[in-house]
């Protein structure tokens, strides 16, 4: 009886002891976690802040007629007194108080920004339709060429079937093409149709990702756009495409584009492809 009582007492004691040990373990672990929490772990997460300052896409060429009048701030510019015929204006990019133009002078193209000169003609400013140059105190106005009848110098390509329209889908020369707006919107909204006609492979190069055209369906609209297998897409509207983010960013704004300039690397040379969406 006494032995049983002692054994029961021992068992009870050992159970209490075990319970105490368990409690101590709990306390120690909790204390360790609290220490870790305060020492190394953040107490709040990261909230995404929406960047409302979305960068406008580089607007390279304005060849189409403006259906909607764009209100631009009035500028007090000296009235042009004459025009210069040697300088041909190819493209205009304007932003507030700053202009970049592409001109052709004696068969060579050159990109000028505000204040730069070509043959002594200093670029003063530009609007959507013309650029103003100054030389010897005189102001000269150079207008963008108007394209009313593109058929004169733009060869036509017969339509194919991605959309049911019978309109011409793509027209143009090698370096400059006009894309039918309906077709453009169709592909902008139906990515599956794009992937049936073209495949783009991503190639990692250091921190950058290059986008290489690995397949292009013969006779497809993309082939007519002048894109070729093996082309590496370098930039779109002046924005270098070296990450998925930039590709997403471009694609998100593509529906609103009226002009598109794609620079591709073809046979180790840069080739510029100009498109007007009309």
């Amino acid at each position, binding site marked *: 009886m006494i032995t049983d009582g002692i054994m029961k007492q021992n068992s009870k004691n*050992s159970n209490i002891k*075990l319970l105490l*040990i*368990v409690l101590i*373990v*709990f306390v120690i*672990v*909790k204390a360790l*976690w609290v220490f*870790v*929490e305060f020492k*190394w*772990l*953040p*107490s*709040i*997460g*990261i*909230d*995404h802040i929406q*960047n409302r300052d979305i960068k406008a896409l580089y607007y390279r060429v304005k060849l189409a007629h403006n259906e909607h009048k764009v209100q631009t701030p009035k500028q007090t510019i000296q009235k042009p007194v004459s025009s210069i015929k040697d300088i041909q204006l190819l493209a205009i990019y304007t932003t507030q108080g700053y202009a970049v133009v592409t001109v052709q002078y004696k068969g060579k193209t050159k990109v000028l920004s505000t204040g730069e000169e070509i043959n002594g003609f200093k670029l003063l400013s530009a609007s959507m339709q013309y650029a103003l140059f100054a030389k010897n105190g005189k102001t000269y106005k150079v207008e963008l060429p108007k394209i009313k009848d593109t058929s004169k110098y733009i060869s036509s390509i017969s339509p194919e079937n991605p959309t049911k329209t019978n309109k011409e889908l793509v027209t143009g020369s090698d370096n400059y093409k006009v894309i039918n707006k309906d077709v453009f919107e169709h592909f*902008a*909204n*139906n*990515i*599956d149709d794009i*992937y*049936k006609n073209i*495949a783009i*492979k991503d190639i990692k190069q250091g921190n950058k990702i290059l986008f290489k055209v*690995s*397949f292009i369906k013969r006779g497809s609209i993309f082939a007519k756009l002048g894109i070729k297998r093996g082309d590496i897409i370098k930039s779109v509207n002046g924005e270098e495409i070296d*990450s*998925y*983010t930039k*590709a*997403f*960013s471009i*694609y*998100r704004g593509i529906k609103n584009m009226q002009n598109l300039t794609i620079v591709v690397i073809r046979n180790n040379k840069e080739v510029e492809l100009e498109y007007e969406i009309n």
Partner: protein
Amino acid sequence: MQMVKNILVIIISLWFSIVAFMPKEELYYTLEHKLVKYGIELNEKSIKSGIFSMDVSDIDVYVEGIKVAHIDHIDFLITLLFNTIDLSNIQLDSSVSSFVPSSIKKIQEGHIVYSVTSPFKAKITLNGDFGKAQGYIDTNRSLRLNFIELKSKNSFKYMLKKDDNGWYYETKF
């Protein structure tokens, strides 16, 4: 015998206390901070943590500032020896959904399992509009998905390769 019992109780209580007292929300925030270094941000509406689990709901996923997806729920089950992450209704954002084939715009279920039995791999199961895929992600930063059911491969087969077992997707990150 008593000694074995005591050791077992201590081990179990140690395991239980580690899991139960684990600051799960803070660890999730740590994950968020780590992902930011790779340009990925997670914005969740609520986090509910239990003894062995944590439920994060209404998560917007941003990649370098662009919203790319919305996930209805991410359920974490943490037991140290066997851990799972269940993702439900992964829907690509409209801004990027036009950028990817329609068949991979929505993934109804995603299941990631990490177990001590294969410490260098986490198994992945995906069930989406494209079909079903099983694969793994390993410590060599590689991902492989074997498509066991492929409903529409035409729109994204350029991303896939084929071997004796069928179509698969493989990438390193």
